[in-house]
């Protein structure tokens, strides 16, 4: 997709803001990126969004890198770099500044309360991510079964989820889905 300056600007603004809203990690802003990229800006379809998140899940590296794929889809390599930088840069810089004075307030009551208070919200956000991906990925009994088996393997065994991701991909490539 060929991008104009307005698209770059919109992407930079979106990811810079989300950099500060991603409580408990980058994955928690997936629903908001979906809302902006799919519902509002129509940068991609629902299916494409979920494809990209799924590819990022299977790839090594920090999980924030799904934004690299989203940025790439919207605006090629410059978009990939811009999205990655805007998602990581601002929050990293603030973390760096706060790290210099963390010693002074790490035992303060408000610090502990803020951290504890954000936990339930990040749980709700991850659950929303799960619903978003499952709703787009599970269309029939076969995909539902794959989701259920992957859940079971990840939750109840210590088998790496990469095996499930690989096996599911292979089933699809073989034309069985």
């Amino acid at each position, binding site marked *: 997709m060929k991008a104009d300056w307005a698209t770059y600007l919109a992407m930079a603004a979106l990811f810079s803001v989300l950099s500060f809203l991603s409580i408990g990690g980058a994955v928690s802003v997936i629903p908001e990126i979906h809302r902006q990229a799919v519902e509002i800006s129509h940068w991609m379809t629902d299916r494409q969004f979920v494809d990209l998140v799924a590819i990022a*899940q299977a790839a090594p590296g920090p999980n924030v890198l799904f934004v690299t794929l989203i940025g790439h889809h919207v605006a090629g390599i410059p978009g*990939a770099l811009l999205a990655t930088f805007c998602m990581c840069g601002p929050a990293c810089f603030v973390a760096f500044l706060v790290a210099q004075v963390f010693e002074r307030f790490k035992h303060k009551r408000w610090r502990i309360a803020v951290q504890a208070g954000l936990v339930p*919200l990040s749980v709700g956000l*991850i*659950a929303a991510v799960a619903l978003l991906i499952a709703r787009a990925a*599970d269309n029939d009994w076969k*995909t539902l079964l794959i*989701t259920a088996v992957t859940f079971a393997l990840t939750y109840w065994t210590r088998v790496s*989820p990469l095996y499930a991701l690989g096996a599911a991909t292979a089933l699809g490539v073989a034309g069985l889905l």
Partner: protein
Amino acid sequence: MSPDDFNDLFALCQFLPGPNIVSFAAIYGWRLHGIAGTSSALAGLMIPPVILMIIAGELYARFGTVPVFRGGLTGLAAAAAGLIIATAVQMAEPLARRDRLLQAALAATTFFAIGVMQWPLLAVLIVMAPISIAIAWRATPPSPPLVPRASQENPPEAGTRGLSP
């Protein structure tokens, strides 16, 4: 870096918003070797997977609609859904206790607002975060009283400590 420093830094990066592994690497690199440490930590952490992602993005742009790839992506996405559901359940488990009903209700409300209603994240956080933090505040013991640090409040007289030039 001592284990305590490491744990503190880890807690800080979980406390602050953002991609916490990336922040962690940046600050850890700084503590070891300043700007060179930060640059090399970030380069090592980010450059290889970013290149991989760009290659994956190029492949997706070119072959994303080819039936064989479509089939593979259908399977991959279904498996990824299972993986994320497992993560969500693991994170939710600690809230499933009788004395954490309020926290569970906050998580459920956030899930409903974002996942079901698809309301804007900023608006939801502006409402939910103060409520959740206030509830956590009540459950948090007061800050321990500041321990007077003798070395600072009673500075040693000149000459008593090693002030050799």
